[in-house]
């Protein structure tokens, strides 16, 4: 029986597919910015120092909204810079894009739940809610990234669960430990091992 030979263009297409797949898999290394995480952690520590314990004031929540906006700006800028430096794509289908798709829904849930908690006089429980949902976002987005990323998400989730059980007045400590400490620790690990 004669040996079947692939058409030349099919082999060429397969080779290009292989290159794209190898780049996409390797791109997972570059999707999450480590130094960006460290910077986000630093702003969260500052926010915790400014905000103090959770209370029902508009000031308290605005401090953390301000930090969330700063963190989002840092994250997007750092991710774009890291992707550009390494040549990793940010186009639809890329690891960074898939990360964002899985990352955003739990964050949207957090945005929806924040006014609900506020109107039910549960502002003091917002730290647990935010940490839990942010952790969920990182854990689900991290499914498309290196192992340390979902691990970071699980650490945030655990901290959020503990925050619900702890005295409400400790909320800013939990926020500092999570958005500050965990971001810095995991950011340094990612920066050191996964290209900045």
């Amino acid at each position: 029986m004669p040996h079947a030979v692939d058409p030349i263009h099919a082999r060429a297409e397969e080779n290009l597919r292989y290159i794209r797949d190898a780049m996409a898999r390797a791109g997972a290394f570059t999707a999450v910015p480590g130094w960006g995480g460290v910077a986000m952690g630093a702003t969260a520590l500052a926010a915790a120092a400014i905000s103090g314990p959770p209370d029902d004031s508009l000031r308290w929540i605005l401090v953390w909204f301000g930090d969330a906006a700063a963190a989002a700006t840092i994250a997007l800028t750092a991710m774009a810079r890291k992707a550009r430096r390494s040549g990793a794509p940010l186009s639809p289908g890329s690891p960074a894009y898939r990360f964002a798709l899985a990352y955003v829904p739990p964050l949207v849930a957090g945005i929806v739940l924040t006014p609900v908690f506020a109107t039910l006089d549960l502002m003091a429980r917002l730290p647990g809610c935010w940490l839990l949902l942010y952790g969920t976002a990182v854990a689900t987005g991290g499914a498309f990234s290196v192992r340390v990323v979902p691990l970071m998400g699980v650490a945030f989730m655990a901290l959020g669960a503990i925050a619900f059980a702890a005295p409400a007045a400790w909320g800013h400590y939990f926020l500092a430990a999570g958005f500050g400490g965990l971001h810095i620790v995991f950011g340094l690990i990612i920066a050191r091992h996964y290209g900045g």
Partner: protein
Amino acid sequence: MARSASSRQTAAGGREPGGARPQAKRSTLDLDRVIHERLRLGIVSALAVNERLTFNDLKRLLQTTDGNLSVHARKLEDAQYIACDKTFDGRVPRTEYRLTAAGRRALEKYIAHMDAIIKAVRD
């Protein structure tokens, strides 16, 4: 591995009725054998989207063995397509690879070859 892949392609090129066109034939024959081999192509592609990758990163990404990766990485080093830096992380030796300018050019040329083959057949 490289030999079998390239010989299949050359044979395929010969079978194309009327031509996988001269351009495509030339592209096939001019293929860079150093990165045409599957694992070496994977190494170069992975390094193209990362400044540096460790030996273990590459091994995990490409799902290969220590020996296989070593052999193919050495061939890429010999061709000066990748550079290897050996350091110590504490007492643990750490081998990192990065793509050289020549390696990036070789990958771009290889991708252009593949595009040319596909385009020649479709046109």
